[in-house]
């Protein structure tokens, strides 16, 4: 099974270790991982800011890079959601490409969703000493139905205890460009998320989207919380969560 890894622009720039964790998990699950070397961005910033044209150009690029793979997998519910649920809308005026986009969209998965529902892994390489709480990122949860998949995999991690925080399905306030258009509103929403994380008693908050991670970690640190770890689910599952 040839899996194209869409590493996402944020992971590429900010936290490559998440990308390597994803490679490790996919290979451990028996997949042949292909990383198109020219990949950049899925086009979501343009799409959500009303600039369809620039989104479309990047979407065509993603199509060309991943079309030949059996699956497209991303360590992000947001980017996978963009491709799976929004590309068909983005291409609705391009009859010629619509079929091909549809076929790519239905083969696109968020990492945990793919591991649980496509390759059906039961065991993961990671171990973790401590208690974590899981934040459900909006796009993964509400566009792709990613809810039990990461929890199921996390429970398979040796030594890990999962505890649920209050309002785990509430948005963290990131919202892509929203975070820089309305910085203080975004930070106020993140604040509520931080309170819930801290009240859960966990040692780490684990989630599946780097955008939300940067937002939550940034707000935790600004609040003076230096201890709470903010980890990507791929890092925990792969056993790459140590500093």
């Amino acid at each position, binding site marked *: 099974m040839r899996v194209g890894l869409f590493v996402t622009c944020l992971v590429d720039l900010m936290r490559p270790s998440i990308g390597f964790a994803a490679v490790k998990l996919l290979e451990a699950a028996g997949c042949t991982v292909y990383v198109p070397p020219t990949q*950049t961005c899925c086009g979501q910033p343009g799409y*959500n800011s*009303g600039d369809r044209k620039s989104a479309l*150009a990047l979407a065509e690029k993603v199509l060309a890079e991943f079309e030949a793979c059996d699956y497209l997998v991303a360590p992000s519910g947001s980017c996978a959601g963009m491709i799976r649920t929004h590309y068909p809308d983005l291409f609705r005026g391009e009859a010629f490409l619509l079929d091909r986009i549809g076929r790519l969209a239905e083969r696109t998965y968020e990492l945990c969703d793919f591991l649980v529902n496509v390759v059906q892994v039961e065991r993961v390489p990671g171990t973790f000493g401590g208690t974590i709480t899981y934040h459900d990122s909006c796009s993964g949860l509400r566009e792709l139905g990613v809810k039990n998949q990461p929890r199921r995999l996390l429970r398979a991690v040796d030594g890990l205890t999962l505890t649920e925080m209050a309002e785990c399905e509430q*948005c963290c*306030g*990131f919202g892509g460009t929203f975070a820089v258009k*309305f910085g203080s509103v975004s930070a106020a929403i993140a604040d509520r998320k931080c309170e819930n994380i801290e009240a859960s008693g966990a040692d780490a908050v684990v989630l599946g989207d780097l955008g939300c991670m940067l937002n939550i970690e940034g707000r935790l640190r600004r609040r003076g919380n230096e201890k709470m770890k903010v980890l990507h689910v791929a890092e925990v599952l792969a056993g790459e969560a140590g500093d």
Partner: protein
Amino acid sequence: MQLESMHFKRNAARALADATLQANLRKFGAAGLAALRAKAVEEFGAQAFDTLRTAGAEIRDRALAELDAYIERFEQEATRRGATVLYAETGAEACNLVLEICGRHGIKKAVKSKSMLSEEANLNEVLVAAGVVPIETDLGEYIIQLAEEPPSHIIAPAVHKSKGEVADLFARSHRKPPKTDIPQMTREAREVLRQHFLTADLGISGGNFLIAETGSGVIVTNEGNGRMVTTLPRVHICVTGIEKVIPTLEDFATLLRLLTRSATGQAISSYVSMFTGPRSPYDREGPQHMYFVLVDGGRTSLVGTDLEPMLRCIRCGACMNHCPVYRAVGGHAYGWVYPGPMGAVLTPSYVGLENALDLPNASTLCNQCGVVCPVRIPLPDLMRNLREREVERGLRPKSEILALRMWSWLAQRPWLYALATRWAARALRLRAGGAKRLRKLPLAGKEWTLGRDFPAPQGATFRELYARRRSSS
């Protein structure tokens, strides 16, 4: 109500800095209503409720697809039962129609139950200027009328106020010692309002639905004030939007199940009042004259456009109750009648996109609103659609468009992109130093670091590390 929607950002900042408001928003507020809804949906059965939502959306779509025919049917049936149906293209026209009715019947005082359309049309101000005293009788509306404030929520208009603030307000307005206990406070308001009910010549209500097959208006309330407003005074005017018409009573039954559960988590509200024509010779009560003032107010401009699904809205407030932005800043920041996600679509549609530029952008697109909407309005898609219109009409800041285009241009050139990202990863890392985070970012990043640190990148890009690993293995 005064339009303030172009100042969302400033008003949101003010709301965030207002400690009393923040405490009030957190106390029960929107999140409390959301919890009540969740419980009601669970009791109903989540899957069954989803099926009901689909049925609700279909009913609203069916009505909107032949809106003109259903309005005509409504008018015929309402007229046959003795009511008068009038139409207004704008809020101002609606006010004029109401004033004409006031003049015809010598009206001096009007008791009102909740009507969002009267907020759209600034009806209270117009009435006062014409010498007619309007008294809001919904408790929340009564409170904000005393406080001279606009509503901050469509079904809980005074949700931004604390018990203490209301106690002070009542003590001042009623000239009585302040009460500390809520039942005592409501009793005091009842006593004041009772006098108004008995002395008013006119009742003005909104309308949750208009039923075409019977020519009836319906209001859904919890306080009983709506029933008094629509039966006690000698004249009753129902002021509402033309899109509220639905085909049948059967359809109403479905929508009612959705509305009350979505709004307050109730299986049904305490009162469901239907009014069908004025008092007949066989009725013991009811108004002698009954009018419907049906207002367009920008609604037909949405028909046939991508925004048409917004007209399905049954005004339950679930979208704002679940909205992280609304929960953080409250309703006044949105600057017009309708706050939250529904307002982010309705306000630019009704008052002009150029007068509400921030609203479609003031959302994280988390889609909490979309998944709870009882009539399946794809609110994030509609907000995105309005964002596209802003770009098309050149209404976004040039710097923002430039940044988006530059990003896209760069991301279409993988090798240049690789250079730029390698440089950025290193530069940001270096700048962050041992702290591994930045407390201040330049340019667009400034907004980010207002309330957050920016975690530093690890220092090299995934693509370069992966290529290195591949070539060494």
